[in-house]
């Protein structure tokens, strides 16, 4: 029989050394009685075997040790040693949660993690300044953890309260952080009776943030069990808060709405949007048009989209480029042709000797239409009715900009401008007339180029698109 007796501080390292020695000598778990110095003395204890370096713990177990060894009854140390021994024979043992020892270890580790988490959460410091080093403020706290977790929690508080001196005292250990140095003192400590002047303010907050209409004391107790209450200043208010909650709600419900105490000043003009709708024919410039379009509800697409994406460019532009509809990025940024297709468009425009900022760029449909696939918004082709509903805005843009030339990019734009969307690839590169008898250059939409999977075909089509655009300066100079 072996009975390692470990120190109260540095327990984890001492356990590791002892376990290595015992496992190296092949000692069965049943023959080891784990305990702490000063705890129950062992009945028959053989001297520990000499240290051995041959035994290693699988990573999953090694990582778990800080959550097993500090367990108060000793079961944690016991199961850890058993798993260490069994892991030497069974590969991957720790990933089998159906194994009884593994399940026990995970259950203990879970309880320890909860204990640690609750200590992080429920320690309450009192200001004990002066008392800090070099003018640092000093704080003190009392906490009663279930397990021997002081050394596991110390570093958390040190990294959180780095600019002050503090001490957290438990019945067995005092964690001290002074002048930037973390240390531990073992002893027998008693709960002090001191408070902090800010506790009243904190309790005020605790009372005010509580919603009496949602009373659920069981849910509170599940996460903040009674055993913690005596060390939590705010918890002293709980009985009264519960007792008066129902009455407060009934009073709220019974009170008839009162008229406002003072004349209510007007906020923003709420009729603004409606006014827009009635003033459509008075539109005089592109900016006004765009603001009016923001309130458009002519088709259902305005619902799911972020915002209207109106055309962009100088009102005196000679060329108006018309695409299909905004995409994900356009919808977020509120500007046409800024996503991947827009970037390609910009690039080929400059290769063709055109400056985008001199021209007007817009879409046949002004809202983004999409399908959700998981969390991604996938572009969906607008329906004929939606294109038709939006044609009104395109006509307003045409009237305002009055371009010498339109460029229809893709079938949707071609359809809305000429009334016929069929046979795009046969018609591309040619000049046709719009319904209001303006010249229109027919070409593909840049997103078509992005979708071509074959790199050679993609290159060829990109070249064709550039050649189409190169016809524009030629057209304008004639």
């Amino acid at each position, binding site marked *: 029989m072996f009975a390692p007796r470990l120190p109260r501080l540095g327990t984890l390292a001492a356990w590791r050394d002892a376990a290595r020695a015992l496992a190296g000598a092949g000692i069965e778990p049943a023959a080891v009685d784990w305990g702490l110095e000063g705890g129950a003395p062992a009945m028959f204890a053989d001297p520990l075997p000499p240290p051995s370096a041959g035994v290693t713990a699988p990573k999953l177990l090694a990582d778990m040790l800080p959550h097993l060894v500090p367990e108060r009854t000793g079961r944690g140390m016991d199961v850890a040693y058993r798993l260490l021994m069994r892991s030497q024979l069974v590969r*991957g043992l720790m*990933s*089998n*949660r*159906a194994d*009884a020892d593994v*399940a026990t270890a995970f259950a203990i580790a879970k309880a320890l993690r909860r204990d640690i*988490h609750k200590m992080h*959460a*429920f320690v*309450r*410091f*009192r*200001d004990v300044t002066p008392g800090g080093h070099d003018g640092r*403020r000093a704080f003190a*706290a009392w906490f009663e953890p279930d397990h021997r977790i002081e050394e596991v929690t110390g570093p958390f508080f*040190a*990294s*959180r*309260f*780095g*600019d002050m001196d503090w001490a957290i005292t438990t019945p067995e250990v005092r964690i001290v952080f002074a002048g*930037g140095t973390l240390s531990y003192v073992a002893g027998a400590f008693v709960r002090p009776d001191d408070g902090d002047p*800010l506790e009243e303010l*904190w309790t*005020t*907050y*605790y*009372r*005010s*943030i*509580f*919603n*009496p*209409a*949602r009373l659920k*004391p069981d*849910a*509170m107790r599940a*996460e*903040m069990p009674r055993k913690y209450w005596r060390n939590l200043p705010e*918890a002293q208010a709980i009985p009264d*808060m519960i007792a008066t909650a129902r009455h407060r*709600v009934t009073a*709220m*419900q019974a*009170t008839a*709405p009162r008229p*406002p105490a003072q004349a*209510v000043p007007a*906020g923003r003009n*709420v009729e603004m949007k409606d006014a827009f709708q009635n003033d459509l024919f008075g539109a005089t410039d592109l900016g006004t048009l765009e603001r009016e379009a923001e309130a458009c509800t002519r088709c259902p697409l305005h619902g799911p989209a*972020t*915002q209207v994406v109106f055309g962009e460019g100088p009102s005196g532009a000679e060329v108006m480029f018309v695409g299909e509809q905004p995409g994900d*990025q356009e*919808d*977020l*940024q*509120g500007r046409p042709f800024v996503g991947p297709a827009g970037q390609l468009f910009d690039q080929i425009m400059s290769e063709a000797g055109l400056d985008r900022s001199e021209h007007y760029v817009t879409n046949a449909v002004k809202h983004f239409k999409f399908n959700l696939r998981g*969390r991604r918004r996938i572009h969906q082709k607008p329906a004929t009715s939606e294109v038709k509903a939006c044609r009104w805005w395109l006509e307003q843009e045409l009237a305002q900009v009055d371009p010498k030339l339109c460029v229809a990019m893709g079938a949707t734009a071609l359809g809305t401008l000429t009334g016929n969307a069929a046979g795009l690839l046969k018609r591309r590169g040619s000049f046709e007339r719009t319904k209001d008898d303006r010249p229109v250059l027919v070409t593909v939409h840049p997103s078509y180029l992005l979708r071509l999977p074959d790199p050679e075909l993609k290159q060829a089509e990109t070249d064709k698109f550039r050649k189409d655009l190169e016809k524009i300066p030629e057209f304008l100079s004639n």
Partner: protein
Amino acid sequence: MAKMTIQQKLAILSDAAKYDASCSSSGGAKRSSRDGSGLGSTTGSGICHAYAPDGRCISLLKILMTNVCIFDCAYCINRRSSNVQRARFTVDEVVWLTTEFYRRNYIEGLFLSSGIIKSSDYTMEEMVRIVEKLRMDGFRGYVHLKTIPDASPELIERAGLCADRLSINIEMPTDAGLHSYAPEKDATGIRKAMAKVRTTREDRSDPSHTGRRRKGYAPAGQSTQMIVGADGSSDADVLGNATRLYGAYDLKRVYYSAFSPIPDASEVLPLKDPPLLREHRLYQADWLLRFYGFTLHEVVPQGGDGLLDLDVDPKLAWALVNRDRFPVDVNAAPKDMLLRVPGFGTKIVDRILAARRHSALSLEDVRRMGGRTKAAMPFVIARGHVPGRVLDSADLRDRFVKPKQLELF
């Protein structure tokens, strides 16, 4: 009027803030003050420092900068026509409260919201100044900042540089609902603000031209909140909108807040007890959509009343009407089908997948891993367990429905 004490202000401005459900302090960058040069740390996972008797966690100091507001939103306690007492914190007061509470380990950080005063930009700038002051004083705890719709892009940029999380509340499940309850708020303006946060986050996460990663912008992302039960929106409306918001703006969370009676309420609102069970079912459904591979129409079937079943959770509800998909063999089924078993969470499914490589699992094995086998039993096959005719029995649903209580909460 005598000058208000900070305690009076705190009482008013935290009471006014409690209808915001979010109190999360998780996610985001890791920070520490171990070197003594500042105060505070964030570890990536939040800590709830207290729980109120409403069962909700208290992680952050959740306050309004002011409850004065030029808007008149019917559901809101701070609307301009309400008779509540008004107050406003100074910059120094918020900084002092946050750091002194933090030093005593009462909180993880600050959640600052505000009524709208003067203009969107004015309000946003005052809030940003508070958080910038906190950061300048060396505060490294968590900060959640409300963004104000229509605030200028520069201010939204500054806000994201000093806060861990930004949020803006969509308030009502439908645009029409927002229009009738909050006529001065504009759904498009709210969505635009969310879009601005998403695009700024994406721009900022690209390495700069020198190749160095730029300073994190709102590292814990953005979230929003919808009030449930104030208007007639169905659960299909609520979840449909949530799904679109998750997709469009890369939200970390959509919070559902059961409408609860407020003091000095507006007469257009139902002064009933809050629909807490409905709120709970919405969160369950939200999880199914995000982590369990369910689609919206599976959770809220089309053609029905668009409401979730209050008696059973949404996953069980789906299983009960799709019994032909069961039983599922715990020892052979693929992950996506295990995720659809009532009583199995994502963690349990991972544990089953790892453990079944060692040996065939029994129901007891699954229970030991943390599975709720009582719920799963009729729907699974395991070593030594076949559900038999239970799965086809007409009263299967009744096994799961608790007898009605007189009062729910």
